[in-house]
Protein backbone atom coordinates (compact mmCIF):
# COMPACT_ATOMS: atom_id res chain seq x y z
CA UNK A 1 0.00 0.00 0.00
CA UNK A 2 1.00 3.58 -0.27
CA UNK A 3 3.67 4.64 2.20
CA UNK A 4 2.43 8.22 2.09
CA UNK A 5 -0.75 7.27 3.97
CA UNK A 6 1.22 6.09 7.00
CA UNK A 7 3.80 8.87 6.70
CA UNK A 8 1.07 11.51 6.84
CA UNK A 9 -0.52 9.71 9.78
CA UNK A 10 2.73 10.12 11.78
CA UNK A 11 2.63 13.82 10.91
CA UNK A 12 -0.94 14.14 12.18
CA UNK A 13 -0.06 12.32 15.38
CA UNK A 14 2.89 14.68 16.00
CA UNK A 15 0.75 17.75 15.44
CA UNK A 16 -1.95 16.39 17.74
CA UNK A 17 0.61 16.26 20.59
CA UNK A 18 1.80 19.71 19.61
CA UNK A 19 -1.73 21.11 20.03
CA UNK A 20 -2.21 19.17 23.30
CA UNK A 21 0.94 20.78 24.68
CA UNK A 22 -0.11 24.26 23.54
CA UNK A 23 -3.57 23.75 25.08
CA UNK A 24 -2.00 22.96 28.45
CA UNK A 25 0.26 26.01 28.20
CA UNK A 26 -2.68 28.27 27.43
CA UNK A 27 -4.81 26.74 30.21
CA UNK A 28 -2.02 27.67 32.64
CA UNK A 29 -1.44 31.18 31.39
CA UNK A 30 -2.34 32.55 34.86
CA UNK A 31 -0.90 29.74 36.97
CA UNK A 32 1.75 30.98 39.42
CA UNK A 33 5.30 30.11 38.32
CA UNK A 34 4.02 27.80 35.58
CA UNK A 35 6.71 26.79 33.09
CA UNK A 36 5.59 26.28 29.54
CA UNK A 37 6.24 23.07 27.66
CA UNK A 38 7.39 22.62 24.11
CA UNK A 39 6.98 19.55 21.94
CA UNK A 40 10.11 18.62 19.95
CA UNK A 41 9.92 16.54 16.82
CA UNK A 42 12.41 14.34 15.01
CA UNK A 43 12.30 12.65 11.65
CA UNK A 44 11.79 8.89 11.52
CA UNK A 45 13.96 6.26 9.87
CA UNK A 46 14.74 6.39 6.18
CA UNK A 47 14.57 3.70 3.58
CA UNK A 48 17.69 3.99 1.49
CA UNK A 49 16.89 3.08 -2.08
CA UNK A 50 20.26 4.21 -3.35
CA UNK A 51 23.03 5.37 -1.04
CA UNK A 52 24.88 8.60 -1.72
CA UNK A 53 28.51 8.11 -2.66
CA UNK A 54 27.93 4.78 -4.36
CA UNK A 55 29.58 4.25 -7.72
CA UNK A 56 27.11 4.38 -10.55
CA UNK A 57 29.61 3.07 -13.07
CA UNK A 58 33.38 2.72 -12.73
CA UNK A 59 34.87 6.09 -11.89
CA UNK A 60 31.61 7.92 -11.25
CA UNK A 61 29.96 8.55 -7.90
CA UNK A 62 26.27 9.10 -7.28
CA UNK A 63 26.17 12.72 -6.03
CA UNK A 64 23.04 12.35 -3.92
CA UNK A 65 21.21 9.22 -2.92
CA UNK A 66 17.58 8.28 -2.81
CA UNK A 67 16.26 8.07 0.70
CA UNK A 68 12.58 7.92 1.46
CA UNK A 69 11.49 9.07 4.89
CA UNK A 70 8.79 7.55 7.04
CA UNK A 71 7.52 10.73 8.69
CA UNK A 72 8.03 12.40 12.05
CA UNK A 73 7.76 11.48 15.69
CA UNK A 74 7.61 13.19 19.04
CA UNK A 75 11.14 13.33 20.47
CA UNK A 76 10.45 15.10 23.75
CA UNK A 77 8.17 17.54 25.51
CA UNK A 78 10.49 19.93 27.31
CA UNK A 79 9.67 22.22 30.19
CA UNK A 80 11.30 25.57 29.54
CA UNK A 81 12.53 27.03 32.80
CA UNK A 82 12.87 30.64 31.71
CA UNK A 83 11.75 33.10 34.37
CA UNK A 84 8.17 34.30 34.31
CA UNK A 85 7.05 37.87 34.86
CA UNK A 86 6.79 39.52 38.27
CA UNK A 87 3.43 40.09 39.92
CA UNK A 88 3.55 42.52 42.85
CA UNK A 89 0.96 41.44 45.41
CA UNK A 90 1.47 43.39 48.65
CA UNK A 91 0.86 40.13 50.56
CA UNK A 92 3.52 39.27 53.14
CA UNK A 93 3.39 35.50 52.52
CA UNK A 94 4.07 35.79 48.78
CA UNK A 95 7.69 34.90 48.00
CA UNK A 96 9.29 34.93 44.62
CA UNK A 97 12.56 33.28 43.60
CA UNK A 98 14.89 35.45 41.56
CA UNK A 99 17.20 32.87 39.98
CA UNK A 100 17.28 29.15 39.33
CA UNK A 101 16.17 27.69 42.66
CA UNK A 102 13.10 25.82 43.89
CA UNK A 103 11.32 25.85 47.25
CA UNK A 104 11.36 22.48 49.04
CA UNK A 105 7.98 21.15 50.09
CA UNK A 106 7.10 18.08 52.14
CA UNK A 107 4.20 16.16 50.65
CA UNK A 108 1.71 14.18 52.76
CA UNK A 109 3.57 10.93 51.95
CA UNK A 110 6.72 12.38 53.51
CA UNK A 111 8.64 12.83 50.24
CA UNK A 112 10.13 16.14 49.21
CA UNK A 113 8.75 17.93 46.17
CA UNK A 114 9.93 21.16 44.60
CA UNK A 115 8.04 24.24 43.50
CA UNK A 116 8.66 27.75 42.30
CA UNK A 117 5.19 28.88 43.33
CA UNK A 118 5.84 31.05 46.39
CA UNK A 119 2.23 31.66 47.31
CA UNK A 120 2.28 30.44 50.94
CA UNK A 121 -0.23 30.38 53.77
CA UNK A 122 -0.25 29.65 57.50
CA UNK A 123 -1.87 26.43 58.70
CA UNK A 124 -3.66 26.03 62.08
CA UNK A 125 -0.34 25.51 63.90
CA UNK A 126 1.26 28.56 62.27
CA UNK A 127 3.48 26.57 59.88
CA UNK A 128 4.33 28.06 56.52
CA UNK A 129 2.49 25.87 53.96
CA UNK A 130 1.62 25.88 50.25
CA UNK A 131 -1.97 26.55 49.21
CA UNK A 132 -2.49 22.76 49.32
CA UNK A 133 -1.29 22.63 52.95
CA UNK A 134 2.12 21.03 52.37
CA UNK A 135 4.75 22.49 54.74
CA UNK A 136 7.89 24.23 53.55
CA UNK A 137 11.17 22.41 54.40
CA UNK A 138 12.86 23.32 56.75
CA UNK A 139 9.69 24.15 58.68
CA UNK A 140 9.00 27.75 59.60
CA UNK A 141 6.43 28.21 62.35
CA UNK A 142 4.98 31.65 62.86
CA UNK A 143 3.93 32.43 66.46
CA UNK A 144 0.31 33.46 67.03
CA UNK A 145 0.90 37.03 68.18
CA UNK A 146 3.58 37.79 65.60
CA UNK A 147 3.43 40.92 63.45
CA UNK A 148 5.57 42.47 60.72
CA UNK A 149 6.65 39.25 58.99
CA UNK A 150 9.70 39.92 56.89
CA UNK A 151 11.75 37.71 54.59
CA UNK A 152 15.17 38.85 53.52
CA UNK A 153 16.87 38.15 50.20
CA UNK A 154 18.76 35.42 52.06
CA UNK A 155 15.49 33.69 53.07
CA UNK A 156 15.74 34.49 56.79
CA UNK A 157 12.22 34.96 58.20
CA UNK A 158 11.85 37.45 61.04
CA UNK A 159 8.76 38.62 62.93
CA UNK A 160 8.04 41.06 65.72
CA UNK A 161 6.62 39.57 68.91
CA UNK A 162 5.65 42.16 71.53
CA UNK A 163 7.81 44.73 69.77
CA UNK A 164 10.89 42.48 69.72
CA UNK A 165 12.41 41.07 66.56
CA UNK A 166 12.60 37.28 66.53
CA UNK A 167 14.28 35.06 63.90
CA UNK A 168 12.13 32.09 62.86
CA UNK A 169 14.42 30.25 60.46
CA UNK A 170 15.69 30.30 56.94
CA UNK A 171 13.87 29.25 53.78
CA UNK A 172 16.19 27.06 51.70
CA UNK A 173 16.27 26.59 47.97
CA UNK A 174 17.36 23.71 45.76
CA UNK A 175 18.75 23.70 42.24
CA UNK A 176 19.04 20.97 39.63
CA UNK A 177 21.62 20.43 36.91
CA UNK A 178 18.88 19.75 34.39
CA UNK A 179 15.58 21.29 35.56
CA UNK A 180 14.00 20.25 32.22
CA UNK A 181 14.33 16.66 33.47
CA UNK A 182 12.06 17.29 36.49
CA UNK A 183 8.74 15.54 36.47
CA UNK A 184 5.74 17.84 36.77
CA UNK A 185 3.54 16.33 39.46
CA UNK A 186 0.61 18.74 39.24
CA UNK A 187 -0.27 21.33 41.94
CA UNK A 188 2.73 23.36 40.72
CA UNK A 189 5.02 20.70 42.19
CA UNK A 190 7.98 18.94 40.59
CA UNK A 191 9.67 15.73 41.63
CA UNK A 192 13.29 14.86 40.79
CA UNK A 193 14.06 12.10 38.29
CA UNK A 194 17.21 10.41 37.09
CA UNK A 195 17.28 12.96 34.28
CA UNK A 196 17.10 16.03 36.50
CA UNK A 197 19.95 14.94 38.78
CA UNK A 198 20.04 15.21 42.56
CA UNK A 199 18.93 18.48 44.18
CA UNK A 200 21.64 20.78 45.44
CA UNK A 201 20.31 22.58 48.52
CA UNK A 202 21.64 25.95 49.49
CA UNK A 203 20.81 29.15 51.30
CA UNK A 204 19.31 31.92 49.17
CA UNK A 205 21.58 34.71 47.99
CA UNK A 206 24.50 32.28 48.12
CA UNK A 207 25.81 29.45 45.95
CA UNK A 208 23.77 30.44 42.90
CA UNK A 209 20.38 29.16 44.01
CA UNK A 210 18.74 32.57 43.67
CA UNK A 211 17.33 35.22 45.97
CA UNK A 212 13.96 35.58 47.62
CA UNK A 213 11.75 38.60 47.03
CA UNK A 214 8.83 39.14 49.37
CA UNK A 215 5.49 40.70 48.29
CA UNK A 216 5.93 39.29 44.79
CA UNK A 217 4.87 36.21 42.85
CA UNK A 218 6.26 34.70 39.68
CA UNK A 219 3.83 34.67 36.79
CA UNK A 220 3.54 31.92 34.24
CA UNK A 221 6.20 32.15 31.50
CA UNK A 222 3.59 31.41 28.82
CA UNK A 223 3.49 34.05 26.11
CA UNK A 224 -0.03 34.11 24.67
CA UNK A 225 0.95 35.54 21.28
CA UNK A 226 3.65 32.92 20.85
CA UNK A 227 1.28 30.11 21.80
CA UNK A 228 -1.40 31.39 19.44
CA UNK A 229 1.08 31.48 16.57
CA UNK A 230 2.23 27.95 17.47
CA UNK A 231 -1.38 26.85 17.60
CA UNK A 232 -2.08 28.23 14.13
CA UNK A 233 0.97 26.53 12.62
CA UNK A 234 0.14 23.32 14.50
CA UNK A 235 -3.45 23.29 13.29
CA UNK A 236 -2.45 24.01 9.70
CA UNK A 237 0.27 21.38 9.76
CA UNK A 238 -2.35 18.90 10.98
CA UNK A 239 -4.69 19.94 8.20
CA UNK A 240 -1.98 19.64 5.53
CA UNK A 241 -1.10 16.13 6.68
CA UNK A 242 -4.77 15.15 6.50
CA UNK A 243 -4.76 16.48 2.93
CA UNK A 244 -1.91 14.10 2.11
CA UNK A 245 -4.00 11.24 3.44
CA UNK A 246 -7.03 12.20 1.35
CA UNK A 247 -4.83 12.64 -1.74
CA UNK A 248 -3.31 9.18 -1.22
CA UNK A 249 -6.80 7.81 -0.78
CA UNK A 250 -7.98 9.41 -4.01
CA UNK A 251 -4.97 8.05 -5.85
CA UNK A 252 -5.81 4.56 -4.64
CA UNK A 253 -9.38 5.12 -5.72
CA UNK A 254 -8.17 6.12 -9.19
CA UNK A 255 -6.13 2.93 -9.33
CA UNK A 256 -9.16 0.91 -8.34
CA UNK A 257 -11.15 2.51 -11.14
CA UNK A 258 -8.66 1.65 -13.88
CA UNK A 259 -10.61 -1.45 -14.58
Amino acid at each position, binding site marked *: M*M*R*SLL*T*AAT*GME*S*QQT*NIDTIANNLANVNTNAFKRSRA*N*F*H*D*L*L*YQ*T*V*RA*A*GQSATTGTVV*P*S*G*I*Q*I*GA*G*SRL*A*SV*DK*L*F*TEGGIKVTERNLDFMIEG*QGFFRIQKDDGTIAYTRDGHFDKDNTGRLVTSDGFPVVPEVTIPQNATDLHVGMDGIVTVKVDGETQELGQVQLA*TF*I*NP*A*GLQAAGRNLYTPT*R*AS*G*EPVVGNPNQS*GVGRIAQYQLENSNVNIVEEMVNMITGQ*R*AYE*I*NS*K*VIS*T*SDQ*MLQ*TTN*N*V*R
Partner: protein
Amino acid sequence: MLHGIYTPLSGALAQERVLEIIANNLANVNTTAFKGDNISFKLLDSEPERNYNSPLPPANFKRDLSEVMPFRGNEIAFVGISDIERDLSQGPAIDTKNPTDMMLEGEGLFAVQTQDGLRYTRSGDFKVSPDGVLMTSSGHPVLGERGNIFVRSSAFDVNHRGEIYQDGELVDRLRIYEFADQRQLERTGDNYFFFGGPDEDRVLSQNTNVRQGFLEGSNVNAIKSLTAMIIAHRSFEAYQKAISNYDKMLEKGSNSIGEVRA
Protein backbone atom coordinates in the same frame (compact mmCIF):
# COMPACT_ATOMS: atom_id res chain seq x y z
CA MET B 1 1.11 -7.07 -26.29
CA LEU B 2 1.27 -3.34 -26.27
CA HIS B 3 4.55 -2.21 -24.76
CA GLY B 4 3.23 1.30 -24.46
CA ILE B 5 1.18 0.46 -21.40
CA TYR B 6 4.41 0.35 -19.37
CA THR B 7 5.22 3.98 -20.12
CA PRO B 8 2.28 5.46 -18.17
CA LEU B 9 2.89 2.83 -15.49
CA SER B 10 6.45 4.09 -14.98
CA GLY B 11 4.99 7.60 -14.73
CA ALA B 12 2.37 6.56 -12.20
CA LEU B 13 4.97 4.80 -10.05
CA ALA B 14 7.18 7.88 -10.18
CA GLN B 15 4.29 10.08 -9.05
CA GLU B 16 3.59 7.71 -6.19
CA ARG B 17 7.21 8.21 -5.11
CA VAL B 18 6.70 11.97 -5.31
CA LEU B 19 3.74 11.71 -2.97
CA GLU B 20 5.83 9.67 -0.52
CA ILE B 21 8.49 12.38 -0.49
CA ILE B 22 5.91 15.13 -0.06
CA ALA B 23 4.23 13.18 2.75
CA ASN B 24 7.57 12.97 4.57
CA ASN B 25 8.25 16.67 4.01
CA LEU B 26 4.84 17.65 5.33
CA ALA B 27 4.97 15.24 8.28
CA ASN B 28 8.15 17.11 9.26
CA VAL B 29 6.84 20.62 8.75
CA ASN B 30 7.40 21.27 12.48
CA THR B 31 10.52 19.15 12.97
CA THR B 32 13.50 21.13 14.28
CA ALA B 33 16.07 21.93 11.56
CA PHE B 34 14.46 19.52 9.09
CA LYS B 35 15.59 19.85 5.48
CA GLY B 36 12.97 19.07 2.86
CA ASP B 37 13.56 16.85 -0.16
CA ASN B 38 13.13 17.71 -3.82
CA ILE B 39 12.68 14.98 -6.38
CA SER B 40 13.81 15.05 -9.97
CA PHE B 41 13.13 12.69 -12.84
CA LYS B 42 15.08 11.41 -15.74
CA LEU B 43 14.25 9.76 -18.99
CA LEU B 44 15.34 6.17 -18.70
CA ASP B 45 17.54 5.46 -21.68
CA SER B 46 16.24 3.07 -24.28
CA GLU B 47 18.31 0.53 -26.12
CA PRO B 48 19.55 1.57 -29.58
CA GLU B 49 18.68 -1.72 -31.19
CA ARG B 50 15.21 -3.18 -31.26
CA ASN B 51 14.64 -6.21 -29.14
CA TYR B 52 10.90 -6.02 -28.93
CA ASN B 53 9.95 -9.56 -28.56
CA SER B 54 12.67 -10.75 -26.28
CA PRO B 55 10.95 -12.80 -23.59
CA LEU B 56 13.93 -12.30 -21.25
CA PRO B 57 14.78 -9.13 -19.38
CA PRO B 58 17.65 -7.15 -20.94
CA ALA B 59 21.18 -7.77 -19.73
CA ASN B 60 21.43 -4.52 -17.79
CA PHE B 61 18.12 -5.12 -16.01
CA LYS B 62 18.22 -3.19 -12.72
CA ARG B 63 16.23 -3.89 -9.62
CA ASP B 64 14.71 -0.46 -9.41
CA LEU B 65 12.04 1.45 -11.24
CA SER B 66 13.27 0.16 -14.55
CA GLU B 67 11.84 -3.18 -13.45
CA VAL B 68 8.64 -1.90 -14.95
CA MET B 69 10.14 -2.19 -18.43
CA PRO B 70 10.53 -5.86 -19.19
CA PHE B 71 10.65 -5.08 -22.93
CA ARG B 72 12.71 -2.36 -24.44
CA GLY B 73 12.38 -0.52 -27.66
CA ASN B 74 14.04 2.67 -28.75
CA GLU B 75 10.82 4.45 -29.54
CA ILE B 76 9.31 3.87 -26.12
CA ALA B 77 10.43 6.09 -23.27
CA PHE B 78 10.10 5.57 -19.56
CA VAL B 79 10.43 7.86 -16.61
CA GLY B 80 12.48 7.12 -13.53
CA ILE B 81 13.79 8.92 -10.48
CA SER B 82 17.19 10.43 -10.99
CA ASP B 83 17.64 12.24 -7.73
CA ILE B 84 16.09 13.04 -4.43
CA GLU B 85 17.96 16.12 -3.43
CA ARG B 86 17.85 17.79 -0.04
CA ASP B 87 16.97 21.44 -0.01
CA LEU B 88 19.87 22.74 2.10
CA SER B 89 18.55 26.26 2.59
CA GLN B 90 18.47 27.74 6.07
CA GLY B 91 15.24 27.16 8.03
CA PRO B 92 13.51 30.02 9.87
CA ALA B 93 14.88 31.17 13.25
CA ILE B 94 12.55 30.43 16.15
CA ASP B 95 13.16 32.55 19.24
CA THR B 96 12.84 30.26 22.27
CA LYS B 97 14.91 32.18 24.84
CA ASN B 98 15.95 28.80 26.20
CA PRO B 99 19.70 28.85 26.98
CA THR B 100 20.21 25.22 25.90
CA ASP B 101 18.69 25.82 22.44
CA MET B 102 21.17 26.60 19.69
CA MET B 103 20.79 27.42 16.05
CA LEU B 104 23.38 27.22 13.31
CA GLU B 105 23.70 29.91 10.68
CA GLY B 106 25.71 28.63 7.78
CA GLU B 107 26.58 25.24 6.36
CA GLY B 108 27.97 23.49 9.43
CA LEU B 109 26.56 20.69 11.57
CA PHE B 110 27.03 19.78 15.24
CA ALA B 111 28.93 16.56 15.96
CA VAL B 112 27.22 13.99 18.18
CA GLN B 113 28.62 10.79 19.69
CA THR B 114 26.18 7.87 19.49
CA GLN B 115 26.71 4.19 20.28
CA ASP B 116 26.93 3.62 16.52
CA GLY B 117 29.65 6.21 16.00
CA LEU B 118 29.75 9.86 15.01
CA ARG B 119 26.58 11.48 13.78
CA TYR B 120 25.91 15.04 12.69
CA THR B 121 22.87 17.20 13.31
CA ARG B 122 21.62 20.72 12.79
CA SER B 123 19.00 20.35 15.45
CA GLY B 124 20.20 22.31 18.48
CA ASP B 125 17.50 21.36 20.98
CA PHE B 126 20.06 20.37 23.60
CA LYS B 127 19.73 19.42 27.26
CA VAL B 128 22.06 19.01 30.19
CA SER B 129 22.36 15.48 31.56
CA PRO B 130 22.34 14.79 35.33
CA ASP B 131 26.14 14.46 35.09
CA GLY B 132 26.32 17.94 33.56
CA VAL B 133 27.03 16.83 29.99
CA LEU B 134 25.49 18.72 27.06
CA MET B 135 23.24 16.31 25.15
CA THR B 136 20.87 16.17 22.21
CA SER B 137 17.22 15.51 22.94
CA SER B 138 17.80 11.86 22.00
CA GLY B 139 20.32 11.63 24.85
CA HIS B 140 23.62 11.54 22.95
CA PRO B 141 26.52 13.79 24.00
CA VAL B 142 27.28 16.80 21.81
CA LEU B 143 30.99 17.03 21.06
CA GLY B 144 33.29 19.92 21.76
CA GLU B 145 36.92 20.24 20.81
CA ARG B 146 37.89 18.36 23.99
CA GLY B 147 35.22 15.67 23.69
CA ASN B 148 32.09 15.70 25.85
CA ILE B 149 31.09 19.15 27.04
CA PHE B 150 30.72 19.45 30.82
CA VAL B 151 28.57 22.47 31.59
CA ARG B 152 27.38 21.54 35.14
CA SER B 153 24.11 23.48 34.76
CA SER B 154 21.99 25.09 32.08
CA ALA B 155 23.31 28.55 32.99
CA PHE B 156 25.95 29.14 30.31
CA ASP B 157 26.62 31.49 27.44
CA VAL B 158 27.50 30.55 23.90
CA ASN B 159 29.02 33.09 21.55
CA HIS B 160 28.68 33.10 17.78
CA ARG B 161 31.92 31.12 17.41
CA GLY B 162 30.40 28.28 19.44
CA GLU B 163 32.56 28.92 22.51
CA ILE B 164 30.74 28.01 25.70
CA TYR B 165 31.40 30.18 28.74
CA GLN B 166 30.28 29.46 32.27
CA ASP B 167 30.92 31.86 35.15
CA GLY B 168 33.23 33.79 32.85
CA GLU B 169 35.40 30.76 32.06
CA LEU B 170 35.74 29.06 28.71
CA VAL B 171 34.35 25.52 29.04
CA ASP B 172 34.84 24.24 25.51
CA ARG B 173 34.12 25.09 21.92
CA LEU B 174 31.40 23.25 19.99
CA ARG B 175 32.75 21.09 17.18
CA ILE B 176 30.96 22.21 14.03
CA TYR B 177 31.81 20.41 10.83
CA GLU B 178 31.42 21.43 7.24
CA PHE B 179 31.44 18.95 4.38
CA ALA B 180 32.82 19.23 0.88
CA ASP B 181 29.50 17.93 -0.43
CA GLN B 182 26.61 17.91 2.03
CA ARG B 183 24.66 15.64 -0.29
CA GLN B 184 26.94 12.80 0.78
CA LEU B 185 25.38 12.94 4.25
CA GLU B 186 22.95 10.12 4.78
CA ARG B 187 19.96 10.48 7.06
CA THR B 188 19.56 8.03 9.89
CA GLY B 189 16.43 9.44 11.54
CA ASP B 190 16.26 11.40 14.85
CA ASN B 191 17.51 14.47 12.94
CA TYR B 192 20.91 12.77 12.60
CA PHE B 193 23.13 12.42 9.56
CA PHE B 194 25.85 9.87 8.90
CA PHE B 195 28.97 10.63 6.89
CA GLY B 196 30.78 7.73 5.29
CA GLY B 197 33.08 9.68 3.00
CA PRO B 198 36.81 10.31 3.31
CA ASP B 199 38.11 12.44 6.21
CA GLU B 200 39.53 15.13 3.94
CA ASP B 201 35.96 15.96 2.84
CA ARG B 202 35.13 16.99 6.41
CA VAL B 203 36.57 20.14 7.97
CA LEU B 204 35.89 22.17 11.12
CA SER B 205 33.72 25.05 10.04
CA GLN B 206 34.99 28.60 10.49
CA ASN B 207 32.05 30.51 9.06
CA THR B 208 29.08 28.87 10.73
CA ASN B 209 27.62 31.06 13.46
CA VAL B 210 25.94 29.74 16.57
CA ARG B 211 22.96 31.57 18.04
CA GLN B 212 21.98 30.70 21.56
CA GLY B 213 18.29 30.84 22.54
CA PHE B 214 17.10 30.07 19.02
CA LEU B 215 16.12 26.94 17.13
CA GLU B 216 16.16 26.40 13.40
CA GLY B 217 12.71 25.55 12.10
CA SER B 218 11.90 23.14 9.28
CA ASN B 219 12.61 24.58 5.83
CA VAL B 220 9.62 22.80 4.27
CA ASN B 221 7.42 25.22 2.40
CA ALA B 222 3.87 24.00 2.97
CA ILE B 223 2.35 25.92 0.05
CA LYS B 224 4.94 24.67 -2.44
CA SER B 225 4.56 21.13 -1.14
CA LEU B 226 0.75 21.26 -1.39
CA THR B 227 0.94 22.52 -4.97
CA ALA B 228 3.42 19.76 -5.81
CA MET B 229 1.03 17.30 -4.23
CA ILE B 230 -1.86 18.45 -6.41
CA ILE B 231 0.34 18.11 -9.50
CA ALA B 232 1.45 14.61 -8.44
CA HIS B 233 -2.13 13.60 -7.75
CA ARG B 234 -3.49 14.78 -11.09
CA SER B 235 -0.54 13.42 -13.08
CA PHE B 236 -1.10 10.08 -11.40
CA GLU B 237 -4.74 10.26 -12.46
CA ALA B 238 -3.75 11.09 -16.02
CA TYR B 239 -1.36 8.12 -16.17
CA GLN B 240 -4.10 5.87 -14.88
CA LYS B 241 -6.38 7.21 -17.64
CA ALA B 242 -3.73 6.35 -20.21
CA ILE B 243 -3.42 2.86 -18.74
CA SER B 244 -7.15 2.30 -18.90
CA ASN B 245 -7.18 3.54 -22.51
CA TYR B 246 -4.50 1.00 -23.39
CA ASP B 247 -6.66 -1.56 -21.65
CA LYS B 248 -9.64 -0.58 -23.80
CA MET B 249 -7.52 -0.83 -26.93
CA LEU B 250 -6.39 -4.30 -25.93
CA GLU B 251 -9.99 -5.20 -25.25
CA LYS B 252 -10.95 -4.02 -28.70
CA GLY B 253 -8.07 -5.97 -30.13
CA SER B 254 -8.98 -9.19 -28.44
CA ASN B 255 -12.74 -9.01 -28.77
CA SER B 256 -13.60 -6.96 -31.87
CA ILE B 257 -10.96 -7.84 -34.44
CA GLY B 258 -12.11 -10.80 -36.38
CA GLU B 259 -15.62 -10.53 -35.10
CA VAL B 260 -18.03 -11.64 -37.78
CA ARG B 261 -20.87 -9.26 -38.27
CA ALA B 262 -24.02 -10.37 -39.78
